């Protein structure tokens, strides 16, 4: 576990720091913009915040691509499988953190009755927001885990271009789902909420199960990647 934490720390320093600290400042600015957008309560903005967090992983690919980190991974006193595991864990934890932050911000926005566009049948109240956040979390973690797995298996995990395409694909898919919900072609969040268990306890259990399931998908993708890469040379 210590190695996994060290590797995540390693990746985060790579992605967020630069010698002049300009990169750190840029990240804080991006995060602030997304948080302010989320505060105004638009679901699409929440999606943007998730994508914002996903963007954090893009520089990782670019940095690894530019710096030939595979050589470094071959030198560090950690098994290579842990390098892979750390990437998956970072995806899960960063999106989980994002889920919490976005829920808190949007709930605050709801409580303070901050102006929103007319989305009355789209998201209503804090309980629906929670469902919404859990749904987005499950979608993005699963999709990101799957795409990470495919990238690693095809040796493209360090290719910035492929990662950007993947993220754009995820964003478009998410956006399309929102659009279909908004146009009532797919059930809206309000309708979906009606399908959930009636009691609060029941809903919370469902959310917990969904989180466990998402963690399971992430772990399965990770495990499969590790197995496929067992014979890889660095």
């Amino acid at each position, binding site marked *: 576990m*210590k*190695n996994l934490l*060290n590797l995540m*720390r*390693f990746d985060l*320093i*790579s992605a967020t*720091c*630069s*010698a*002049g600290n300009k*990169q750190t400042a840029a990240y804080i600015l991006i995060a602030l913009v997304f948080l302010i957008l989320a505060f105004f309560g638009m679901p699409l903005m929440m999606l943007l915040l998730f994508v914002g967090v996903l963007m954090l992983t893009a520089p990782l690919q670019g*940095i690894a691509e*530019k*710096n*030939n*980190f595979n*050589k*470094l991974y*071959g*030198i*560090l*006193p*950690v*098994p290579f499988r842990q390098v892979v595991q750390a990437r998956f864990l970072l995806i899960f934890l960063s999106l989980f953190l994002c889920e919490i932050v976005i829920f808190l911000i949007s709930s605050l926005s709801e409580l303070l009755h901050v102006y929103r566009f007319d989305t009355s049948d789209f998201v209503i109240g804090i309980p629906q927001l929670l469902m919404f956040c859990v749904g987005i979390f499950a979608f993005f973690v699963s999709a990101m885990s799957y795409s990470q797995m495919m990238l690693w298996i095809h040796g493209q995990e360090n290719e910035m271009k492929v990662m950007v395409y993947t993220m754009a694909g995820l964003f478009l898919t998410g956006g399309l789902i929102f659009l279909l919900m908004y146009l009532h072609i797919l059930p809206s969040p309000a309708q979906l909420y009606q399908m959930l268990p009636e009691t609060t306890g029941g809903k919370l259990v469902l959310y917990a199960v969904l989180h466990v399931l998402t963690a399971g998908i992430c772990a399965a993708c990770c495990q499969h990647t590790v197995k496929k890469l067992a*014979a890889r*040379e*660095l």
Partner: protein
Amino acid sequence: MENILEIKELNKSYADFALKDVSFSLPRGYIMGFVGENGSGKTTTIRSILNMAKIDSGKISVFGLDSIKDTVAIKQRLGVVFDSLYLAEHLSVRQIEQQLMPFYSEWDTKEFHSKIKQFGLPEDKEVGSFSKGMKMKLMIAVALSHNAELMILDEPTSGLDPVARDELLDILAEYIEDEKRSVLFSTHITADVERVADYITMLHGGRVWFTGTKDELDGKYVLLKGAEDDLPDALREKCIGFHAYRNGFDAMLDTQYLDEVPDALVTEKANIDEILVYIAKEARHEKSSESDAV
């Protein structure tokens, strides 16, 4: 004498290249120069030691530990310098230390900063903007800061100016002064080997051509020159990299055959560069003979 590194019958094949039965050992407290022309297998051997390449057969022991089974424990005690920087180029020296420090149980921050100061490296500048010599020194500082007992360097001096090369070689010589640490460095700049190496392993075409002390290699081969007519057929068979030209021939000869050399021929000691050149000539000669036979 305890061996810090031992390689026995290492085999590793790729589609277009193979290491064949590579065996050599490096005793503790010495520097070994690992020489051979480009594509001779130096880097593949180093990657095999680091378990970055999966070997087909053979055994590699570092500090008496198995290079595959105990790779993590080995890397705690190993310093590696590649010909290009493998660290994040957009980070500063301080940020790189923050990244690497947690991985090494014996990381010594004081030692790291003292080396950075000694090597004259700026701590807050992007390391990507460093000169090649500075990048080499940074990788060495990293290796020295976690108390590495064996330093492996892959072509560290290629592309360095003479002053930077000289500094680097001084650092290596100083590194082994306590006689507990060793250095394996691959290079095709044989002057560096002549200067600091105690042992030499010479690779050619994926095979070990020579391994032993520098002194052993020093007296092992001579260059043979003269008129082709003065060269007995039996001796010609023993020549390495024989090359005939209009006024005579030149070749390399193992000194064990020196008493067979007629007085009319001239001999002179072969240096490492010349040995490499004649080995390559011999290989080309063998290759063309094989294709002629086909």
